[in-house]
């Protein structure tokens, strides 16, 4: 992984959209209407950046390539679900990304010295757990989409479709509190706010329902995991290696 340092640095930079959004929010004083102070909002977006960095998933793209190239066949013979391989890759890359994310945070604090804060240890641990749960949810959703490769070959376009609600509803571009009431009434039943908004609120010290958030995250994992198992066993039955 360390071979691709520049790659990973660029990848970290490509995640800075939350900072642009923060710029729009504070520059137009939009946060006054939702009762969040400048400082809390900037912490929120910084945390959103962190949560995104450590919960981003690309398993569908790797799986699609491997399945089109026929690399899945040898994996299937091994006594280990191939998704473990991708899972380990994701974890390794997240660890390598950590220093770059810290560097970006450092620059962020230089420009926004007011927003420096140190979360207490308990909150920090809880938000690491919730970020990991958010990563698990996204990993499961993408693995389910990836399994569609067994039927359609090009599953990445479905992933791009699913990415749109994730982008707009997860809280990466605007905190969920700022959403209009007609969206807020149903959004907490979907997995989206638990992907970024909940862990980011937790870490940044904004108001959030801790036990509710965790139970929804765990609930979604329990719902998605059997679905993944089912689609995986159906898919491998359907699988015919490319060119056979």
């Amino acid at each position: 992984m360390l071979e691709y340092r520049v790659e990973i640095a660029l990848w970290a930079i490509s995640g800075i959209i939350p900072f642009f959004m923060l710029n729009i929010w504070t520059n137009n004083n939009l946060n006054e209407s939702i009762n969040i102070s400048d400082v809390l909002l900037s912490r929120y977006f910084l945390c959103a950046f962190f949560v995104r960095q450590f919960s981003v998933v690309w398993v569908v793209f790797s799986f699609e390539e491997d399945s089109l190239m026929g690399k899945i066949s040898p994996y299937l013979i091994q006594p280990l679900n191939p998704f473990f391989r991708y899972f380990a890759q994701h974890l390794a890359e997240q660890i390598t990304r950590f220093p770059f994310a810290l560097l970006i945070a450092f620059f962020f604090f230089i420009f926004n010295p007011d927003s420096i804060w140190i979360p207490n240890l308990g909150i920090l641990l809880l938000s690491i757990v919730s970020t990991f749960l958010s990563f698990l949810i996204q990993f499961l959703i993408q693995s389910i989409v990836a399994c569609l490769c067994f039927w359609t070959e090009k599953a990445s376009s479905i992933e791009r479709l699913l990415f749109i609600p994730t982008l707009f509803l997860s809280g990466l571009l605007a905190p969920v509190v700022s959403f209009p009431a007609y969206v807020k009434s149903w959004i907490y039943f979907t997995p989206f706010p638990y992907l970024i908004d909940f862990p980011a609120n937790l870490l940044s010290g904004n108001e959030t329902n801790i036990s509710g958030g965790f139970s929804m995250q765990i609930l979604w994992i329990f719902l998605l995991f059997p679905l993944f198992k089912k689609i995986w066993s159906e898919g491998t039955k359907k699988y015919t290696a490319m060119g056979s």
Partner: protein
Amino acid sequence: MNLRKYLKVYKKFIHTSLASELEYKTNILVDLVTAILSLIGSIFLLSIFFQNNGYIGGWEFEQALIIQAIYTILNGITNTWFNPNLTEIVKHIREGTLDFVLLKPIDSQFFISLKKLNPSGFLEIMLGILLLFFCIRINQINLNLSFLTLSLITISCSICILYSLWFFISTSTIWFVKTWNAIEVLRSFLYIGRFPLNSFSLSLRIFFSIFIPIAFITTIPSEVFLGDSQLWKILLEVIVATLFLITSRKFWLFALKFYSSASS
């Protein structure tokens, strides 16, 4: 340069890429739904910004919609032409197949930038044009000849700048081999184009007009639509676009000197 020959070759390009893309018909449908959803999503985001404020950076909601429309059209153009072709450059260089392109009796930049075409982007362009017509109605813009020529000029300049930005990044593959993530960086910067330039702080505004001229791409054409653009801005955009096109050409020829084929 023989124009007729290039036109003929281009017709063949369209034919072959349409034939190969239409193999995946459901994909095109999924892409259309994606384009519609992403437009709805960004209008939703815009409505959050405007829910308690009348103006963002001096733009009203109806005016900011024009920016969304132009962004959607340009994004459609990117998805139709730039994205499929220029990601192909990365592949050519990694696998050494650029040799075959260079050997062809045709301009290599022409071949490499127009070979492929992704028809699902057309739907996005149409979506953008529809929204633009809607904006023209709600903003009560009179269509006259000078307005039409000016808007066409600025939009074509935006397309040239966008093309050059993509082409720069893809060309740099010759040195760096892997630039997928550089493309991601460009994508995330282009995202800025969805919002009026004035809604950002001064330092970001300067960054996005000098270093990466994203400001020119959507804001200036939208100002032309609203009829409040100054002539010097339009002239500046024309100059920037020409400069970018010329440099992209020079940069390609320069980069080719460093191209050392695969396994050599």
